[in-house]
């Protein structure tokens, strides 16, 4: 081969010094060799650049681990840089690399993958850049801004109350505990709480009255709407229940005949309930209309839900009656001494639309357009006893129940009742006469649930 090349050269140029021929051969070979290496580099580079590398986004404070395949024919030498001080580290494998750790910083980080081909170590390192997005931890982004001074209808950011009803003749009596807290989404914008509640117990005749209301987030004065609704509705019930012998007599009659489905007795109690809590709700609707008129604005600016319950223990058991407009939940819950055999009854139907946040409000005229519309929002029943009567706004019912079918599932209510008492950070001790329960319940309302940051209000008769 060598002789053949020398022969060709001699044919062209005659006798040539040996060293000149050697120089020529070395120059030529290195020139073509370099070209050859460059061609390989280009091939490798195209392979790397066309490799689809997708790195899923990470989140601060959330453990992250992902294996990214990096299997390029002809490349075994490569490094990955660019994650210093991010809390993440890269571990190189033969045909992939693993990014893992718990991110400490948010942002878009540019990862640099440096590689060169195996054929010649002479080649320069080439670089491919890939972005890794680290989201902030949403929990640390929430701001707790105070409500500006001097707003119309100021309202405290939280409210808690305990109605202690002491034992009578040695028999313990049920108490009411309630708590309401401004949601993170409101606190983040320095907006006031829109929820409200009101509790009452008549020490003379032992009637309990509970109202819970959720002002619509989109309505300007809904915080006042919810306040007026609770105040007006409860006041009406309180007054009506001062002298209610006839009503109680009807309830007693109803108890005797309650197994006959369409009894006269049921009708009488139905009429009483209509006059009592149906009218209470209507008065609340009217009171909001009046306030809106005084202010010269539309009453829908005061849009609010209303959940109202009255209850009393009779010799034969508990009588409970309710009115419910809007979302949230009213549930009568019973379990045995061991926390087993759960039974739950939803006292009404939540008003929910096809899309989240759609509901009906006390301020809507159609709620009271005729007696049938109002009747279907009323419920009453007699039970031997119960464990807890819950009234809550959707700020609580949404995160824990999500759907209608869960709201009608006794086991979900069993789990919920357990959760309140056994929460590892904020357990609520629902023992008789424990007045601390109101602060414990406020603490419990701080639970975390992604996407559920509305105002939260719950009242429990237990």
């Amino acid at each position, binding site marked *: 081969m060598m002789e053949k090349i020398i022969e060709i050269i001699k044919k062209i140029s005659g006798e040539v010094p040996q060293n000149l021929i050697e120089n020529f051969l070395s120059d030529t070979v290195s020139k073509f060799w370099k070209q050859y290496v460059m061609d390989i580099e280009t091939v490798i580079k195209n392979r790397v650049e066309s490799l689809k590398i*997708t790195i899923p986004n990470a989140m601060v404070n959330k453990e992250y681990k992902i294996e990214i395949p990096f299997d390029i024919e002809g490349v075994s030498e490569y490094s990955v840089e660019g994650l210093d001080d991010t809390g993440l580290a890269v571990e190189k494998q033969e045909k992939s690399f693993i990014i893992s750790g718990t991110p400490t910083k948010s942002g878009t980080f540019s990862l640099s993958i440096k590689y060169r081909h195996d054929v010649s170590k002479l080649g320069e390192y080439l670089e491919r850049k890939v972005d890794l997005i680290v989201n902030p931890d949403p929990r640390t982004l929430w701001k707790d801004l105070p409500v500006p001074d001097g707003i119309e209808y100021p309202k405290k950011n939280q409210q808690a109350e305990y109605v202690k009803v002491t034992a009578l003749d040695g028999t313990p009596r049920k108490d009411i505990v309630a708590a309401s807290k401004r949601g993170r989404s409101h606190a983040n914008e320095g907006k006031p709480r829109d929820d409200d509640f009101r509790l009452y117990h008549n020490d003379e005749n032992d009637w309990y009255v509970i109202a819970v209301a959720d002002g*619509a987030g989109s309505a300007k004065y809904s915080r006042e709407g919810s306040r007026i609704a609770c105040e007006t509705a409860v006041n009406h019930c309180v007054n009506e229940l001062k002298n209610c012998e006839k009503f109680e007599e009807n309830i007693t009659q109803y108890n005797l005949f309650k197994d006959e489905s369409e009894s006269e007795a049921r009708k009488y109690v139905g009429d009483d309930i209509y006059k009592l809590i149906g009218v209470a709700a209507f008065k609340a609707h009217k009171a909001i209309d009046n306030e809106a008129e005084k202010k010269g604005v539309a009453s829908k600016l005061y849009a609010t839900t209303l959940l109202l319950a009255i209850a009393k223990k009779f010799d034969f058991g508990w009588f409970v009656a309710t009115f419910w407009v809007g979302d949230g939940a009213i549930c009568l819950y019973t379990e045995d001494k061991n926390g087993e055999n759960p039974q739950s009854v939803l006292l009404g139907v939540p008003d*929910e639309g*096809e*899309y*989240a946040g*759609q509901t009906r409000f006390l301020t809507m005229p159609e709620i009271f357009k005729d007696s049938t519309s109002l009747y279907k929002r009323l419920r009453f029943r007699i039970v031997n006893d119960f464990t807890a009567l819950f009234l809550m706004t959707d700020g609580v019912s949404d995160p824990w129940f*999500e759907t209608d079918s869960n709201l009608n599932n006794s086991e979900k209510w069993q789990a919920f009742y357990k959760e309140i008492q056994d929460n590892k950070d904020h357990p609520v001790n629902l023992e008789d006469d424990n007045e601390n329960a109101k602060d414990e319940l406020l603490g419990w309302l701080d639970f975390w649930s992604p*996407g559920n*940051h509305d105002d939260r209000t719950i009242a429990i008769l237990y």
Partner: protein
Amino acid sequence: MTRRLPVYILIDTSGSMKGEPIEAVKVGLADMVATLRQDPYALDTVCISIITFNNEVKQILPLTPLADLQLPEINTPESGPTNTGAALKMLCEMYDKEVIRGSKEKKGDWMPLLFVLTDGKPSDIMDYKNIIPVVKSHAFTNIVACAAGPKAKTEHLKQLTDNVVSLDTMDSQTFRKFFEWVSMQVQTGGKSVGTTDEVALPEPPAEVNIVI
């Protein structure tokens, strides 16, 4: 699972958008995503889908939670028609496929938002006319249509929605302001509303003109 707020963004990528306009749109989109990522509520709830349209229509980003989102490349051909009608048709198909309606067993999404950005008029005018009632049968909290640049026509967009805005120029400052305004709407999107109430749009910046 969390209640999602679906946000559909339709972007005109016809030939006339090539160059500075589309680069400005990309910057605006990136800014919007960066802004929303700093909002804890958005990070929990917002999902974004991007559909581009020229002579062909592509959903370049299927409905994706903000936390998982990576903006895809947006390419524009040298020239070609603006098939807005076909884009709206795909939008309706994706809506039917992706948006979760509440039922007894399932938690519903927030009502979606729709933004349409175009610099011309629909080339597929018949398709466009036919699809409008179909779009309207899909519930959106708001549909905002934006006519970008001096050549953009607003009369067709008016048939789609009452909320039509126009941009006088197509530079990055203008698009940045437009997307800032979009971000504000997205941030207020997940709020409790009545069954019938419409949500008022926030005050637009000076660069964004409301078309009456």
